[in-house]
């Protein structure tokens, strides 16, 4: 049964914004991506709404837009994007480590960052990531390996995805 576009947006837009923010590291870019993708999805909803997993399809559109070459953005980025005004103390005392990780994520090339997010946030397999990024599985593993080196991550334990379902 096809999901109505309005129902899909109401139910899934918050999840798309979270995913896009984790993917891009920037809330304003995430809003722009999600808005643009939903606009295009709206035009094609007759087909997208009928696929088995429309949310996975729309998420893939976001990933493709992020790694695409359409977006040429100003190089400078405001400090406000790292520490947004009105930030709420979430009780975590180790903000320095967390913020350092966010900065290192920002240093990753887009494809490497997308591969890391798809594996450790969205919980996709290498096969699924390869399909999303349009590359070979060996390329996915190479991208993630280089990314983990940049992030200085110690994964001596078996790495488990952050979420098997998007929230």
């Amino acid at each position: 049964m096809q999901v109505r576009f309005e129902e899909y947006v109401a139910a899934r837009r918050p999840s798309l914004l979270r995913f896009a923010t984790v993917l891009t590291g920037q809330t304003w870019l995430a809003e722009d991506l999600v808005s643009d993708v939903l606009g295009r999805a709206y035009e094609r909803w007759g087909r997208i709404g009928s696929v088995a997993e429309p949310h996975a399809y729309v998420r893939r559109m976001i990933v493709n837009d992020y790694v695409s070459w359409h977006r040429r953005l100003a190089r400078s980025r405001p400090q406000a994007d790292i520490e947004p005004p009105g930030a709420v103390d979430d009780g975590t005392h180790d903000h320095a480590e967390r913020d350092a990780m966010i900065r290192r994520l920002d240093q990753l090339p887009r494809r490497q960052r997308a591969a890391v997010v798809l594996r450790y946030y969205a919980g996709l397999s290498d096969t699924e990531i390869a399909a999303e990024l349009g590359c070979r599985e060996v390329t996915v593993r190479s991208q993630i390996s280089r990314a983990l080196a940049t992030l200085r991550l110690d994964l001596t334990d078996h790495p488990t995805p952050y979420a098997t379902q998007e929230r």
Partner: protein
Amino acid sequence: MDLHDLHDAFAELERRADALPAEPFVPPAPHRSHTLLIGASAATVLAVAGGTAWLTSSGDHAGTQDAGSPPSAPVPSEKYGWQAYSPLDSTTPAPSSAPAARPPVASTEADLERRFTAALGDLATSFTVTDTGHSVTMTMPAAPSSAPATGTPSTPSIGGSPSSLPPVQSNGVAIVGVLTAADGRHGGYDVQMFQASPGEQAQCDDPDRSHCTLSRVDGGTLAIGDEPLEGGGVTYRGEYVRADGVAILLHVSNRANPKGMGGLLASAPPLTRAQVEQVVTSSAW
């Protein structure tokens, strides 16, 4: 650092997303895809994207038509705004002997289509335009902008007024579609023309790849490379940043979409790497 720190970073980014004001989504007005024809020496029929494109032997830019239109003679479509390209249209004003100076960077999709057509020359016979985009430079304010958008949405909103974003300055345009080479091969393409940032140079998408070369051409910088895709696909990429800072970025693939999606349309992209270089460095831009 370990995976726990990565998860903390993800959680913080999620929290920032949840802190965004709950702005409703407004669907944009839909656009239509169309086909542009390039002058050819032989008549050919090509069925593309729901429309039929006829090529003529006029040696000039011919017209195009939507699916179902009579094929006897190409007729320009007003809604796509390229009437000036049809040699059969008697209402088309004759070009002036001294063409008006045009901006260095294409500012509209139609302008980019014209320049792309000129740069392709004899290398291709037609291309479709199934998607468009704009390159933008976003100027970020010190604090999030909360100014409401003006104007009335042309399509019904889902729950209210449009979301507002930081002010943007368009610095280029992009078009996407399927290209048909002179030898009849089809493949996805993506071409973008924009004003590069000061000091910006052409670069390879991934410096670790072994199939990308950087060089200097006429005071500008050129990057030519290829990217293997899953299942036998390949995308050729050419980026040329001229000495005046204007950049042309072109991808062509033997897949329907140069990002690696869609069906395999041919054994190789419709343009060779050398032809990609020829197109992006063309003086016709």
